[in-house]
């Protein structure tokens, strides 16, 4: 439960009435949410509620049919996916999506692809400090890493872009409980280093513990939003997402 060290405040990202479809399936039914600079905001909800769809709509992998996404003065719905990372938005995607036949180091270099010609030494150092195991594995192909290591690589890769807003999609999925705890500690550490974070999680308890505010998604709509402390004690959230009582 930690807030940002220094909240410069003000809205960084704002979604208004975003509708996204998969063919004829109405996946997001008018999502509106915002993230202030320096915050950790979490989206919680069941499988298929639209959490990943929301992230993919923000990053431009999916296009909304209507609605607006304002990020630092730019309308993202008109920006191609490959350009959003240049604006300071990076994503650790669902299922990690490591490049399996590229080495750990090359995966990290791909993370910094948008920063053409810049010195990356410090960034490698930062990632290796956060995830020492990646340094040991740096010349190994990404596809040979364990699930937990791949998760760290996906987060490290997203950090290599030096994002202002980091979007993490299910960072705890499939990890051993000890690792889950570690990952959430690292998420807080990244945030304290000055990165705003949008966190999508099925592990609602852990996500609410580390975040400032949260939104609850159900079948493509936001049904509840509040500070994370309030959500942790809300009867609806306790009932549906924190295993009752």
């Amino acid at each position, binding site marked *: 439960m930690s807030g940002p060290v220094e909240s410069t405040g003000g809205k960084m990202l704002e979604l208004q009435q975003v509708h996204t479809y998969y063919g004829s399936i109405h996946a997001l039914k008018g999502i509106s949410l915002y993230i202030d600079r320096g915050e950790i905001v979490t989206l919680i909800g069941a499988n298929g509620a639209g959490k990943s769809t929301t992230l993919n709509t923000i990053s*431009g992998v999916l296009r909304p049919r209507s609605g607006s996404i304002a990020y630092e003065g730019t309308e993202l719905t008109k920006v191609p996916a490959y350009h959003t*990372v240049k604006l300071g938005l990076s994503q650790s*995607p669902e299922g*990690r999506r490591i490049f399996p*036949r590229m080495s750990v180091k090359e995966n990290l270099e791909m993370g910094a692809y948008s920063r053409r010609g810049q010195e990356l030494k410090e960034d490698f150092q930062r990632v290796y400090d956060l995830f020492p195991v990646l340094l040991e594995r740096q010349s190994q192909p990404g*596809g040979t890493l364990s699930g937990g290591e791949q998760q760290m690589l996906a987060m490290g890769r997203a950090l290599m872009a030096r994002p202002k807003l980091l979007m993490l999609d299910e960072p705890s999925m499939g990890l051993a409980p000890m690792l889950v705890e570690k990952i959430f500690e690292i998420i807080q550490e990244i945030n304290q280093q000055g990165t705003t974070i949008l966190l999508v999680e099925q592990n609602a308890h852990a996500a609410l513990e580390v975040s400032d505010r949260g939104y609850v998604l159900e079948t493509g709509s936001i049904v509840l939003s509040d500070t994370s402390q309030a959500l942790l004690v809300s009867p609806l959230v306790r009932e549906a997402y924190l295993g009752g009582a």
Partner: protein
Amino acid sequence: MEQLTQQLVNGIMLGCLYALIAVGYTMVYGIIELINFAFGELFMFGAFICIALTSSEISLFGSMVGMPQISFFLAVIVSMLVVGLLGVAMERLAYRPLRNAPRLAALISAIGMSIFLQNLAQSVFGSQQIKFPDIPVFTDSAGMAKAVTVLGAQVTYLQLFVVVVTVVAMILLSLFVNRTRLGRAMRASAQDKRTAALMGVNVNGIIAVTFLIGSAMGALAGGLYGAVYHFARPDMGFVPGLKAFIAAVLGGIGNIPGAFLGGLLLGMVESLGAAYIPGGSQYRDAIAFVILILILSFKPTGLLGSPVSEKA
């Protein structure tokens, strides 16, 4: 012994030409899983453009037109550029609109493209075979190909040139794919286009670059092939195109060193088979297809290919 060395020399040179076209097949397959059957026709255009540029005049649409008669080396470079751009245009018009369609649709589009380009060449250059001008550097005053004798085999300067150019092209290509930022983006796009886009890679741009390189390599092969065999004809690309496809499958489709290896092996097996199997020269082309059938039956991933299921 002399015959063996001679056949090996011929086989290596032929194999190099197959390898240059196979690179296009393998790179394009690696990134969009399409067998672009039109590479054979791009190869053919490479030969025609070289002839056109090195001649003093040529028949275009049935009427003689004066030509600049530039050097062969410059002509090859120009034809690589022109055909490279033709390949980019082909991807844009015939394949990109079908990117998310079933794979069979794109394959049929490729076959259509191949037929279209053959007919285009027929209407521009005529359907007759035209002669490739002699290249001064490789020809002596009597009009014979300059050659050296190696282990009893006649190796022409042109054959040596083909081998050197191919080896250099392969090395440059591997360095490009493995060591450069763009090459890394190409490999990332081949493995996972959506994630590559999230990293900031303009995947459509990368696909265009892939077609540019693959097509330019095909044109290089065409120019060299035309020079070696002294001709160009609108249907000349069909069989070498298929052979290069077999070379790519043999080496492991999607794998660049595999294309080189597959091309060399195919060229040598074909030459040796034609020389040593009784009546073998009539079955030259059949040898390649027998290899294709054997590879697909026993090692469909090819010699250097990785299993298809390798995805994290």
